[in-house]
């Protein structure tokens, strides 16, 4: 299945895009989605602990993703 991953801040800048699509097998976890992103974006290969979100909620990397889920990955936040 195709999963679109939203990228923010430095991740988006490194990827040169605010979202990137990856192909993952059905039943894939967020960790697998992130690995697929890293394959597509060499500049993110050193990033092994991104914050991950599914449907606008923080999600652990072992969560399974489904088609249509809103997936996002980003570095530690720095608002304020």
């Amino acid at each position: 299945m195709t999963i679109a991953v939203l990228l923010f801040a430095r991740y988006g800048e490194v990827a040169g895009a605010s979202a990137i699509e990856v192909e993952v097998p059905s039943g894939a976890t967020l960790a697998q989605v992130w690995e697929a992103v890293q394959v597509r974006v060499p500049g993110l290969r050193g990033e092994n602990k991104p914050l991950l979100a599914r449907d606008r909620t923080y999600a652990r990397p072992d969560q399974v993703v489904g088609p249509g889920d809103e997936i996002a990955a980003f570095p530690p936040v720095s608002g304020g």
Partner: protein
Amino acid sequence: MPGLYRILDRPLDLDEAVRAVAGPDRGAIATFLGIGRDHNAGRKVLRLEYQAYPAMAERMMREIGDEVAERFGTPHVALVHRIGPVGVGEISVIVAVASAHRREAMAGCAQAIERLKAVVPIWKKEYFQGGAAWIEGPAGIGPFGGSWSNKPL
């Protein structure tokens, strides 16, 4: 439902945040303003730029409001964060908490800004003389303590 939770790409208005939490049964309002500062880590800062994941940020800000309501007994919370360019001296974030009494308002305000800085998906980029850099929170902060572990939320 009381409370104001917004990501905005325009100058922030303190009076608007105060009005959003005020009411005749509340004798105390505590506010916190984050403001673009002209220096950081020994560097002269020229301006800031904030990016957010707006839909999730507003959801998380509402969740912080719920935490404040549960812990301090008041649902009257405003969290407003600006995105885009923020000049030195301009307001980047406003927290306002109203309560019948001052202790709950001040403690709720302190908790809200701490939680906002730890979990709300917003990032700051600093433009200084000779460059620019994304600021990233410490690794120990975040919804899971910043790690991929199974520590509960």
